[in-house]
């Protein structure tokens, strides 16, 4: 931008520069005045010195920089070495492993294969019962047992579906080529289908 080439009516470069300086000066003064008014109001309204704390309080809340302690001065791995007793199996478990252990132990978490455990437990019961009842009707009882457990298994499976996200997995495997999936995990697969 060469100002020498431009023809300006009345004003030459020095005057323009002077004008620019004046405008700049005005702007700076404006900023200063703004600050003064702000500060003055803060003083008169009493909130100017609010963010200054006295030395004592500053010392109380100083950032702590010691090993083994967080910046507030609290010990943060205090509970790492504590042990809890599981109410289910009465074992002593480390605190940080307690929640996952409970999940598996009570059979209530996502990966706790509760059905399998229950099936094993119930099949053991039924096995014992049928054997004790009649040994002649072994076949009959066997059929009953296997059918019963299958029925139970199927029931359990359909039971499981509405609650867990695995429902979408089984749908996925069946209908790979159909349109967009109802589940929300299918970021990449939706794109693949749309192509």
């Amino acid at each position, binding site marked *: *931008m060469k*100002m020498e080439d*431009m*023809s*300006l*009516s*009345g*004003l030459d470069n020095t*005057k*323009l*520069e002077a*004008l*620019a*300086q*004046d*405008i*700049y*000066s005005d*702007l*700076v*003064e*404006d*900023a*200063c*005045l*703004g*600050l*003064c*008014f702000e*500060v*003055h109001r803060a*003083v008169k309204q009493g909130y*100017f*010195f609010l963010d200054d704390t006295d030395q004592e309080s500053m010392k109380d809340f100083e950032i702590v920089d010691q090993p083994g302690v967080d910046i507030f001065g609290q010990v943060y791995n205090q509970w790492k070495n504590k042990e809890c007793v599981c109410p289910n199996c009465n074992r002593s478990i480390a605190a940080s492993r307690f929640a996952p252990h409970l999940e598996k132990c009570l059979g209530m978490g996502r990966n706790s294969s509760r059905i399998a455990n229950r099936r094993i437990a119930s099949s053991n019961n039924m096995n014992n019962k049928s054997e004790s009842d009649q040994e002649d009707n072994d076949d009959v009882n066997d059929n009953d047992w296997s059918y019963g457990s299958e029925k139970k298994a199927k029931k359990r499976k359909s039971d499981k579906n509405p609650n867990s996200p695995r429902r979408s997995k089984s749908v996925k495997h069946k209908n790979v080529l159909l349109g967009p999936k109802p589940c929300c995990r299918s970021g990449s697969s939706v794109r693949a289908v749309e192509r």
Partner: protein
Amino acid sequence: MSKDSKMRATINQKLTEMGERERLKELLRSKLTECGWRDQLKAHCKDVIKEKGLEHVTVEDLVVEITPKGRVLVPDSVKKELLQRIRAFLAQHAT
């Protein structure tokens, strides 16, 4: 001279009307805050207030103490940038 002052008046008017003055003000404020100018001056204000007394300090006191220091404390980069923008505006609209 009056032609000059007329010219100046016209340009100032244009500056305000086109919103450029406001934009420049905002730009200056944000740049000054970023570079710590405000905090510096505020600290200086504290000294002035402690000197004059919290109850008795007036706007005039502050203005007289703060403005000259404020002008000086503006960093060169900020000054350059603003002057550049002003010159650009003048080059566009001063004909």
